[in-house]
């Protein structure tokens, strides 16, 4: 247990000790072997000497701590907080106000160290947070620009989509109109199919009749071909006959020549005979010429007959093919008759389906109109989003400026705190809960 005495009382006690010591100085002088007249001045001097010494000692003893405290206060005021062990005033026997002041300074020093340390930490954290914020905001700005580009593309896509939807709407409307036309055409087609069936039935009857007539015609052609072949054979005999005639005419000519010569030899009497012989020669020449003409004609006739024979053969072939074709036509017409019946039935079904298709197309038109409305709204909404993104980008730019400013401020704070020398024993000024809260705030940033 230490006794606390105020500094004033200490000075009073010291004064008393000095006075007491001075009071004992005459006795000390009387004990000394000195002259009398000197005793009083000596005792006065001794008293003064004792008073000065004791006063000096006591005064120094009493004010020693204040000087130390003043020095420390000056250091603190200069930011030097490096006192490792605090102020050593606790080993006094009698404590006074200096002890309390030292304790107060120690507490202040400790708190200042903690405060500065925390401020340094906070400044560092704040700087890092500002940098992180700056980085995040920069990324946010880039993201905002990406979003802006994305929204621009979305806007273009929405616009294109809207155009496509408009095109699809026109196409579907056109398809609906075409469906109406198709329905009308199918209706007409059903009527035509019915008429076609009727015509096909008539055609079948006509082709059957034609087939019978073709049979008769074919028989006639075969008969004609046989006749022509017979004619050709007989014509082939004609040249032989013509050869005989030619031979006869030549012999006649020769005979007439000789007769003429004999008539010439007969002189005047043979003139008449010579004229007759000349006539015979002329007749033979005419015969020969006629035979030549006939030969030429027969040659042409033979060529014509050959052509007729070939034509007859071809006609027979064509007639055979025609008969086969007519038979095929008849079969085809039967099939057409069947198919037209089927087509008429199918046309009814197709008409029903076309009506359904038309209804579906109309519903599709309505649906696409709704989609077009939504697409147009999407375009408008995309425009709003684009505008909001622009505003957001402006905000981000402002936030970047603020983050830069905050970073600068944190640097300035760090510079200010750097003026305080804390030393190794950094003490926390803030309670643990408050420190955790600060860290949470940094993380939130």
């Amino acid at each position, binding site marked *: 247990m230490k006794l606390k005495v105020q500094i004033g009382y200490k000075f009073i006690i010291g004064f008393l000790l000095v006075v007491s010591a001075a009071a004992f100085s005459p006795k000390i002088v009387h004990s000394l072997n000195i002259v009398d007249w000197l005793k009083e001045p000596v005792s006065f001097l001794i008293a003064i000497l004792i008073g000065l010494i004791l006063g000096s000692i006591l005064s120094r003893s009493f004010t020693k701590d204040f000087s130390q405290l003043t020095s420390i206060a000056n250091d603190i005021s200069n930011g030097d907080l490096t006192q490792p062990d605090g102020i050593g005033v606790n080993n006094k026997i009698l404590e006074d106000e200096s002890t309390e002041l030292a304790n107060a300074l120690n507490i202040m020093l400790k708190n200042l160290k903690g405060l500065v340390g925390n401020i340094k930490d906070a400044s560092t954290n704040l700087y890092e947070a500002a940098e992180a914020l700056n980085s995040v905001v920069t990324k946010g700005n880039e993201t905002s620009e990406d979003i802006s580009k994305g929204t621009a593309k979305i806007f273009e896509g929405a616009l294109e989509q809207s155009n496509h939807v408009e095109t699809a709407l026109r196409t579907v409307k056109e398809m609906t109109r075409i469906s109406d036309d198709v329905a009308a055409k199918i209706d007409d087609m059903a009527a035509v199919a019915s008429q076609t069936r009727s015509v096909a039935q008539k055609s079948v009857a006509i082709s059957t009749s034609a087939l019978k007539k073709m049979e008769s015609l074919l028989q006639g052609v075969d008969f004609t071909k046989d006749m022509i072949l017979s004619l050709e054979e007989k014509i082939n005999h004609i040249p032989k006959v013509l050869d005989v005639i030619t031979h006869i005419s*030549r*012999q006649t000519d*020769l005979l007439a020549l*000789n007769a*003429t*010569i004999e008539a*010439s*030899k007969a002189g005047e009497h043979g003139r008449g005979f*010579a004229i007759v012989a000349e006539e015979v020669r002329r007749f033979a020449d005419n015969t020969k010429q006629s035979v030549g003409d006939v030969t030429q004609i027969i040659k042409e006739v033979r060529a014509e007959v050959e052509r007729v024979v070939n034509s007859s053969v071809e006609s027979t072939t064509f007639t055979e093919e025609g008969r086969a074709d007519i038979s095929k036509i008849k079969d085809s017409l039967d099939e057409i008759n069947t198919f037209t019946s089927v087509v008429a039935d199918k046309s009814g079904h197709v008409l029903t389906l076309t009506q359904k298709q038309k209804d579906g197309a109309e519903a599709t038109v309505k649906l696409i109109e709704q989609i077009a409305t939504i697409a147009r709204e999407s375009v408008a909404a995309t425009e709003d989003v684009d505008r909001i993104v622009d505003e957001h980008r402006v905000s981000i730019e402002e936030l970047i400026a603020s983050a830069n400013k905050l970073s600068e401020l944190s640097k300035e704070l760090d510079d200010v705190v750097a003026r305080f020398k804390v030393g190794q024993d950094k003490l926390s000024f803030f309670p643990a809960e408050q420190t955790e809260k600060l860290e949470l705030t940094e993380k939130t940033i």
Partner: protein
Amino acid sequence: MTSPASFKDSDKLLISTDREIFAVDANMVAGIIETKQLHMLPIISSHPALGKTGFIKGVITQRGEVIVVISLENLFKAAPVQNGNTHRLVIIKKDASSLGIYVGAKELSFLWKEELSNLEFKQLKKDYIVGLIDPYGKKIQLLDCQKVLEEIHKAISGRQ
């Protein structure tokens, strides 16, 4: 030798080609015949003036008599004409000799004495031709058959 006055004594047989007309006395013509084949004797065919390159076309046998047949184209170096398929011959009889003139398909006609009286005659110095009848018109060449026969006899007998 035929004189301008005597050429009108007999009718003429005319042998016409495309370009030329030859005439022979009708009273020298023994006949006009047709034959299927002409024969060529080796002695004639090997003789350069008679054979294939000469004017003798071949020989025939007529009533046991061998008659030499001549070609007028070869005799007068004229262009050959199409003969046709018939071997028509004019048989000339002069004294005891006979001559065949190959006429083939050539046109044969007659010129009567009455017609000859209106035509001129012009003697011509040309081998085997006596002269020209109607020298300013048809220019009918009167054949010298005697000269032809003599030429044939010379050739066959080996005399040049």
